[in-house]
């Protein structure tokens, strides 16, 4: 019997159902899977950033023990295997399409970044495959390389692709340039900053892995892969690369240990092992090593920007002008072109009623790993630029930074609010999240704490960021008009079993988000089925009808809404069955949390009564309704959702060493309706950890020759628990107005709102040192350099 006690529905901080298996090490990740007769693949990767491949000699390697096959780019080209496709097409200012050079799965004639795969070795064991990979002789002629975003557009820069002159992928713009120029012409003050958004390596805890499997009898291919969206991989790899129909290709993404965007994309290795499995007629497993993932997982961010803000003499914003160079890396990854355009420039209004905005974005190719969406994807870059600019502008206009923000906020009565850069915000209350955050963080008492720190020889700073982001991507028609080559709806199936337990099939994919719990709570809340009797199935194209996957904080807003729609269909059908059983008219049957009732009577039927009748239709309106109780819904959102809020960071700098210690971090976010407060708190804390990582610690550094200097955890600073304070998380809810759940999404807010709060605090701590701006990450060496330069200037 379905009894829900204690309350497990919307708003309950239910412990995560999936954690039992994860904490006991019983998760089933791709590398835990082993197929009968499995072989192992090792990728031979380029040590050069840019070189021609003059000769590849695999003869000795092929003769080594256990080696089944070795393939190079020409082997795939000979079978007309396609390039790795890009899922988004941006158009230039003049309307022409972006440059989209071929991205072969295995290099053809040239390598374009360190880590570019050149050959795959398939052997009985991984060690044998590795031994053979070392025996392959590749003759390279190194070419000049370009690794930095700015260097890529300089005249005479080495050319990454012949098909992209000047290394330009696209030259795009948004907004009204003439209006922006007019606004600037009448401004009392124009404030300008130039800044770099540091390049990051996502570093999910589980490295990527893939198993290709081919059944020679049925002709079916199966790919097990570490993916955030198995249906998208099936579509891209099947249709564009390997030319396998969907009906013959199954993609399974089982437990996945973190993605943060880096597991959205279709990677070459997936196509290579799937194709090669058909060649060698054996399953092939490839598991990425950590040092390999540094040079083959898509990186994040990497913008160089100039931003100018025009103010009137009352401190009101008149306009914003932004110029950004964005690094695409050596090839276009699946979502890459849309990140610095429609996920970035469209957010430049932020939480402010900026009347005019003009932004131009140039995307460039470099001899580096492809860059694509990483937690927040474009929105952290926009928020950082804007919130740093707001602080600089407040300082230069002599205004209090909080009052300056408040003065320019979009007011609650202005929603729905149309920005000058395409988006229409549906709801928000920026004044309330600001006030709540100021109160919780003890903003008013900061100067006393600063004085106390100063007495101990420390520099204390406080920083604020007020932000909005666009997620829950996205209305298919809108993104289609903007260049997306896919729809962005989501699919949910609710299968009520005969005795009332429920299986949910969802196209969203959980890789740390806790979907098995949150989604079960949706079912418990609406259908009254206890979460223990609800199973969430995801990550398998053979089980789930279709889906677009999990990224852009879309799982609940889009995937959850699809489930809600499917539950509405279940309830509608259930009412008809209940009406029959209770001899009432359908219009008189009400449903609430598991109980069908004839309105105004004590006649009731439980959901289990109805499901049993549906599957054992002895007494059933069989002429009117089919047996069974299973419904599928596709939900295509009407708009993006717009979570927002306020983050405040308080930190202390040791001027002797330059070390920054974050003392307090307060986040008050409006993520719409909260389903599981504990999971939301964890999501925000995780996002803030990555935001603090970007602000203080992390940087992917290439040298001028294109070698990745920070290619391991010895040199790439991942945030550790000891680097982080106990992040205080609160929510202040305004409901999303256009999805049935009122939810907005919480997966990325932490990473979006936090970096400028941290950096504004760093600059505030250094306020006596004549510092206007500090670039991320604020490493000890960088901070000491500022302190030392100030000391030398004073001497």
């Amino acid at each position, binding site marked *: 019997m379905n009894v829900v006690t204690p309350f497990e529905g919307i708003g309950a901080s239910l412990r995560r159902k999936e954690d039992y298996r994860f904490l006991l090490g019983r998760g089933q990740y791709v590398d835990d899977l082993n197929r009968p007769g499995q072989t192992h693949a090792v990728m031979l990767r380029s040590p050069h950033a840019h070189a021609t491949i003059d000769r590849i000699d695999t003869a000795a390697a092929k003769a080594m023990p256990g080696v089944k096959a070795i393939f190079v780019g020409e082997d795939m080209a000979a079978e007309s295997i396609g390039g790795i496709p890009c899922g988004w097409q941006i158009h230039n200012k003049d309307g022409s399409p972006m440059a989209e050079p071929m991205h072969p799965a295995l290099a053809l004639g040239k390598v374009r970044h360190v880590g570019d795969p050149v050959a795959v070795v398939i052997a009985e064991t991984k*060690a044998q495959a*590795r031994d053979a990979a*070392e025996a392959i002789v590749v003759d390279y002629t190194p070419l000049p390389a370009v690794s930095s975003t700015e260097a890529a557009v300089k005249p005479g820069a080495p050319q990454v692709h012949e098909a992209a002159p000047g290394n330009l992928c696209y030259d795009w713009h948004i907004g009204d340039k003439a209006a922006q120029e007019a606004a600037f012409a009448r401004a009392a003050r124009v404030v300008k900053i130039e800044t770099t958004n540091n390049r990051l390596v996502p570093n999910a805890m589980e490295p990527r892995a893939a198993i290709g499997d081919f059944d020679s009898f049925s002709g079916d291919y199966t790919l097990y892969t570490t993916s955030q969206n198995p249906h998208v991989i099936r579509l891209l790899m099947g249709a564009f690369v390997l030319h396998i129909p969907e009906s013959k290709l199954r993609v399974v993404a089982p437990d996945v240990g973190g993605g943060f965007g880096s597991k959205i994309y279709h990677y070459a290795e997936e196509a290579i092992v799937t194709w090669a499995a058909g060649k060698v007629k054996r399953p092939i497993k490839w598991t990425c090593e950590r*040092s390999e993932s540094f040079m083959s997982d898509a990186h994040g961010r990497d913008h160089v920007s100039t931003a100018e803000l025009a103010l009137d003499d009352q401190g009101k914003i008149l306009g914003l002008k932004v110029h950004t160079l964005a690094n695409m890396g050596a090839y276009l990854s699946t979502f890459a072109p849309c990140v610095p355009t429609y996920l970035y420039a469209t957010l430049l209004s932020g939480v402010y009623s900026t009347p005019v905005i003009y932004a131009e974005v140039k995307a460039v190719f470099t001899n580096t790993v492809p860059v694509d969406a990483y937690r927040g994807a474009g929105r952290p870059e926009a928020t950082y630029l804007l919130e740093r600019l707001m602080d600089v502008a407040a300082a230069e206009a002599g205004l209090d930074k909080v009052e300056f923000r408040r003065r320019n906020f979009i007011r609650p009565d202005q929603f729905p609010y149309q920005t000058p850069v395409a988006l229409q915000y549906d709801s928000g209350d920026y004044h309330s999240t600001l006030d709540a955050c100021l109160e919780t963080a003890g903003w008013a008492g900061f100067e006393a704490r600063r004085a106390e720190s100063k007495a101990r020889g420390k520099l204390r700073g406080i920083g604020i960021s007020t932000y909005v982001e666009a997620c829950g991507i996205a209305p298919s028609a809108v993104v289609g008009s903007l260049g997306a080559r896919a729809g962005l709806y989501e699919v949910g199936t609710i299968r009520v079993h005969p005795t009332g337990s429920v299986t949910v099939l969802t196209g969203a994919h959980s890789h740390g988000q806790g979907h098995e719990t949150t989604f079960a709570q949706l079912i418990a809340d609406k259908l009254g089925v206890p979460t223990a009797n609800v199973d969430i199935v995801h990550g398998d194209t053979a089980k789930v009808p279709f889906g677009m996957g999990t990224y852009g904080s879309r799982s609940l807003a889009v995937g959850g809404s699809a489930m809600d729609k499917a539950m509405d269909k279940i309830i509608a059908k259930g009412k008809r069955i209940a009406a029959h059983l209770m001899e009432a008219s359908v219009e008189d049957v009400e449903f609430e949390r598991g109980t069908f009732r004839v309105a105004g009577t004590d006649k009731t039927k439980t959901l289990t009564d109805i499901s049993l009748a549906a599957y054992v239709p002895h007494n059933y309106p069989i002429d009117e309704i089919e047996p069974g109780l299973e419904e599928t819904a596709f939900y295509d959102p009407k708009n993006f959702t717009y979570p927002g809020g306020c983050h405040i960071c308080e930190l202390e700098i040791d001027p*002797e*060493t*330059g*070390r920054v210690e974050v003392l307090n971090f307060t986040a008050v976010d409006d993520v719409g309706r909260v389903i599981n407060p504990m999971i939301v708190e964890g999501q925000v804390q995780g996002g803030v950890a990555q935001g603090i990582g970007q602000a203080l*610690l992390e940087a992917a*550094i290439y040298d001028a020759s294109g070698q990745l*200097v*920070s290619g391991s*955890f*010895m*040199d*790439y*600073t*991942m945030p550790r628990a000891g680097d982080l304070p106990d992040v205080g998380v609160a929510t202040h809810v305004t409901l999303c107005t256009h999805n049935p759940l009122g939810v907005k999404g919480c997966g990325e807010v932490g990473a979006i709102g936090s970096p400028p709060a941290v950096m504004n605090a760093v600059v505030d701590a250094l306020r006596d040192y004549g510092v206007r701006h500090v670039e991320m990450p604020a*490493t*000890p*060496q960088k901070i*000491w*350099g500022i302190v*030392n330069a100030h000391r030398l200037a004073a001497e």
Partner: protein
Amino acid sequence: MYDFAYHKPASVADAVKILAADPDARPISGGMTLLPALKLRLNKPTSVVDLSGIAELHGVKREGDKLVIGALTRHVEVATSAEVKAAIPTLAAMAGTIGDTQVRNRGTMGGSVANNDPSADYPAALLALGATIQTDKRKLAAEDFFTGMFTTALEVGELVTAIHIPIPTKAGYAKMRNPASRYSMAGVFVAQTAAGVRVAVNGAGNNGVFREKAMEAALTANWSPDAVADVKVDPGLLNGDIHGSAEYRAHLVTVMAKRAVIDAG
């Protein structure tokens, strides 16, 4: 990793015999450096000689005015040893900052000393404390033992068996960690010993751990943090990387020296 043979001798004599017979054999104690190198295929020994089964190499004991620490003594044992805490509390505290919990549960003092990683903690302590490194063949003063970056006076097949550490009047240690690796980027160990004041620096020198004689002179004249505050280190003798230039490290050495003196009390 490449294939290799594995030996687990029960005595130093047996271990030395295997190592002497094969110059491409490598001893392993905690394996905190060798194992990653093997996994990355940076090292291709014919055999690995596991020293962990040699009982005589384990343990801490006090012998008069010195501590004798067996080469196979793990960092966690040094960090929690009542003998070490009573005699040289800074050394116990230092051991508690090496790597992380997993590393401290595996890594050994002898392994760290024999590896002489320029960013490792122990070499600076042993140099400042005037320790003696005992091998299966001889005894060497720390100064004669640590000969440069990742190099020591050990001959091929020679094993560190114990470290003899004279107990100082007082000692202190401070380090600035590399933000990424958490190894020392500039660490300073100061000690008042029977042989005088000694200061040793790790993490920063371009040829490994070294003594900082100007600081020793300053502290001999006046044991106080202020005495070293104005002693500048020549950046030309230091290394630099993306986390710390030689100039920054030079500055950090002075700051850490001050803090080490404060730590010593």
